């Protein structure tokens, strides 16, 4: 017997799912840019594929990144993914062996215990461990069910899983989730009832089966239970493509494309469509978002991505994001939430025109310097930082020029973050030509916002871009600057654009350690908080910004530092008015440490005279 009517809900559901996936995948391939398509095609036949498979195994099955966040959360996700995957693999093996190596219809392994009741008499068992498959299959089922129990606990005890807040799901997701949750209990019941009749199960189903047989008419219940099991599978497969569980097939594609070197490109586009569908709405990004502190929860990465998927992005909500990158850092799938947000803002703000024709004609004379310094708009707002940098250049004997001494043309990043790419590009072009005319080898900037855009979007013909903290570190390493310990305790605040945005964590600390005792705080480096002054946020009121600022200050000033040090003029400007502890830029502190010797010497001479 290899067919029964009850397999139909499952079988039809599966065919439907495969058909939908084929249609969706072909649409994505068609949407792709031609060069990307070639890249992806080539990657299919290179070592990249192995890399992708490894990553799929580690992330999609083992959920390594989830484990890193919280062991219980990782276990829950792993038991579902790995457990189900192994059930499928083992089930297929088992059924292949039982059927003497024939290829079976897809439903056969799933419902094997309906079709084959008494495995003990099968010839194959003589050659392997007796009962090996029955034992393993029961163990795997138990494994998945343990994850299910955890998932139920997570509803009310989300804190155990490292989540203060969990995702609010819409009705479609709830349908899919309910069917998913019912699949495995139904399987357990169906297999147990059948085992109760024929004793053909493993340790779990046989024991349960015998027990059920004592109190229930299992011979009548077994068949309906198989129907229920098949129906749940069918419902799950049919709802999957429109639910968050679409992430299961999509994340694999995402990993593959990423490894093939395809960049998160424009939105809307093929890659962004795939990214959007790779989000399982796990909710890991919810707690890390500082917008929670002011009740702005509507545009958290998970909901923002869902709104894109539902094709109803909310313009005003979309503006509510500091682009701090904390969600990106936390996301176990590595979805480029910031890129998607900028892309969506580009669509929102398409109507804005910008005209910078008033800028003076580009005719600065060519210069010949080693270093060109760009303070940036924000740098000009903090003249002390600017002055400190000029002092440092002088002290180190650098042949430099101050590019925006008489006023900056904005670097373009604020416009870019606001979704006005074309306007941003106009400013990029202006600055590029100004910078190139200096013929410098190194471009030093005081503002991490400028630093990031210079690095990512400017084509400067190999000119090296350095944030001033990195440049200072290099000067000290090259012994061009001598620093004196200041005998103070500092805390270093990682600016978002410099830390998470550009991966610079160590150089500023390295410099600071030579002049002060640097205390650590609970949330630093990649987990650092945003100061709240972010230029990426468009909608928040000043009061709300202050709440975020003050909470960040509480964390940063926990070790009672003498000075709170940052490396971003905007952070300094934001923290300053709210902080009881003085806030200084790293350049200011370095300049002070350079000059430290002079006053000391002076007073000495005075005493001697």
């Amino acid at each position: 017997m290899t067919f029964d009517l009850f397999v139909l809900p499952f079988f039809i559901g599966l065919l439907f799912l495969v058909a939908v996936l084929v249609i969706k995948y072909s649409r994505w391939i068609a949407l792709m840019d031609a060069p990307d398509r070639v890249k992806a095609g080539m990657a299919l036949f290179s070592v990249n594929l192995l890399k992708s498979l490894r990553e799929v195994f580690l992330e999609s099955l083992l959920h390594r990144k989830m484990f890193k966040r919280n062991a219980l959360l990782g276990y829950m996700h792993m038991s579902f993914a790995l457990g189900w995957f192994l059930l499928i693999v083992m089930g297929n093996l088992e059924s292949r062996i039982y059927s003497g190596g024939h290829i079976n219809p897809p439903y056969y392994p799933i419902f094997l215990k309906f079709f084959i009741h008494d495995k003990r008499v099968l010839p194959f068992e003589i050659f392997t461990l007796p009962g090996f498959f029955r034992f393993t299959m029961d163990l795997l089922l138990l494994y998945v069910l343990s994850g299910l129990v955890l998932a139920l606990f997570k509803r009310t005890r989300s804190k155990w899983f490292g989540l203060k807040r969990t995702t609010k799901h819409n009705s479609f997701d709830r349908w899919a989730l309910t069917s998913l949750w019912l699949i495995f209990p139904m399987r357990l019941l169906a297999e147990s009832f059948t085992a109760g009749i024929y004793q053909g199960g493993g340790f779990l189903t046989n024991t349960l089966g015998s027990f059920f047989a004592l109190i229930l008419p299992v011979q009548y219940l077994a068949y309906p239970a198989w129907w229920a099991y098949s129906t749940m599978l069918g419902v799950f497969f049919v709802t999957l493509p429109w639910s968050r569980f679409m992430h299961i097939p999509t994340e694999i594609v995402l990993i593959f494309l990423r490894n093939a070197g395809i960049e998160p490109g424009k939105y809307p586009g093929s890659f962004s469509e795939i990214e959007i569908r790779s989000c399982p709405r796990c909710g890991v990004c919810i707690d890390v978002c500082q917008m929670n502190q002011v009740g702005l929860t509507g545009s958290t990465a998970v909901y923002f991505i869902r709104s894109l998927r539902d094709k109803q992005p909310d313009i005003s909500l979309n503006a509510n994001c500091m682009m701090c990158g904390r969600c990106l850092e936390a996301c176990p799938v590595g979805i480029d939430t910031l890129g998607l947000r900028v892309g969506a803002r580009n669509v929102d703000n398409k109507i804005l025109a910008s005209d910078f024709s008033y800028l003076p004609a580009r005719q600065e004379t060519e210069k010949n310097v080693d270093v060109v310094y760009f303070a940036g708009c924000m740098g000009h707002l903090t003249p002390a930082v600017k002055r400190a940098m000029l002092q440092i250049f002088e002290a180190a004997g650098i042949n430099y020029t101050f590019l925006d001494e008489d006023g900056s043309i904005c670097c373009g990043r604020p416009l870019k973050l606001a979704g006005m790419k074309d306007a941003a590009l106009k400013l990029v072009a202006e600055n590029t030509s100004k910078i190139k005319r200096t013929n410098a080898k190194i471009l030093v900037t005081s503002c991490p916002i400028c630093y990031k855009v210079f690095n990512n979007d400017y084509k400067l013909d190999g000119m090296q871009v350095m944030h001033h903290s990195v440049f200072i570190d290099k000067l000290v390493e090259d012994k061009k600057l001598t620093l004196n310990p200041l005998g103070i305790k500092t805390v270093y605040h990682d600016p978002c654009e410099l830390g998470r945005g550009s991966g610079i964590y160590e150089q500023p600390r390295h410099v600071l350690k030579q002049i002060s005792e640097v205390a650590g705080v609970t949330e630093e480096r990649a987990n650092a908080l945003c100061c709240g002054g972010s230029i990426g946020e468009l909608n928040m009121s000043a009061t709300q910004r202050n709440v975020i600022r003050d909470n960040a200050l509480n964390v940063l000033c926990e070790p009672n530092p003498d000075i709170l040090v940052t490396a971003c003029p905007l952070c300094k400007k934001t923290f300053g008015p709210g902080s009881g502890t003085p806030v200084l830029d790293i350049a200011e502190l370095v300049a002070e440490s350079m000059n430290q010797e002079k006053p000391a010497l002076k007073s000495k001479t005075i005493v001697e005279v």
Partner: protein
Amino acid sequence: MDKKAVNFGYIVTRDRQIDFDANDHTISRIVANAEPSLNLCISCGTCSATCSAAQFTDFSLRKIILLLRRDEIKSLEKEISKCMLCGKCQLVCPRNVSTRNLIIQISKALTTVHP
């Protein structure tokens, strides 16, 4: 000047009155709704003093806000397109006006109401 008129050495200009109430208030209303902090502005001009764009041209956010409040919107669109959205104005504003969003909302209102 009329040659026959007697030259007294000065000119008397005719009475002139600008009736701001007669202007169309749609845009300022839309903007004030979208960014209520507009109402906090005291026209102090600090924003204009620090403005990046104003280093190169006579662009002034203070003027823009004044014109908007009077619904004198004719030249507004051209003016507002000069902003670099750098955010300096927001950081210096003593009244905590969310200037960047204000600028975005003004441009949006201008383009959607009078496309």
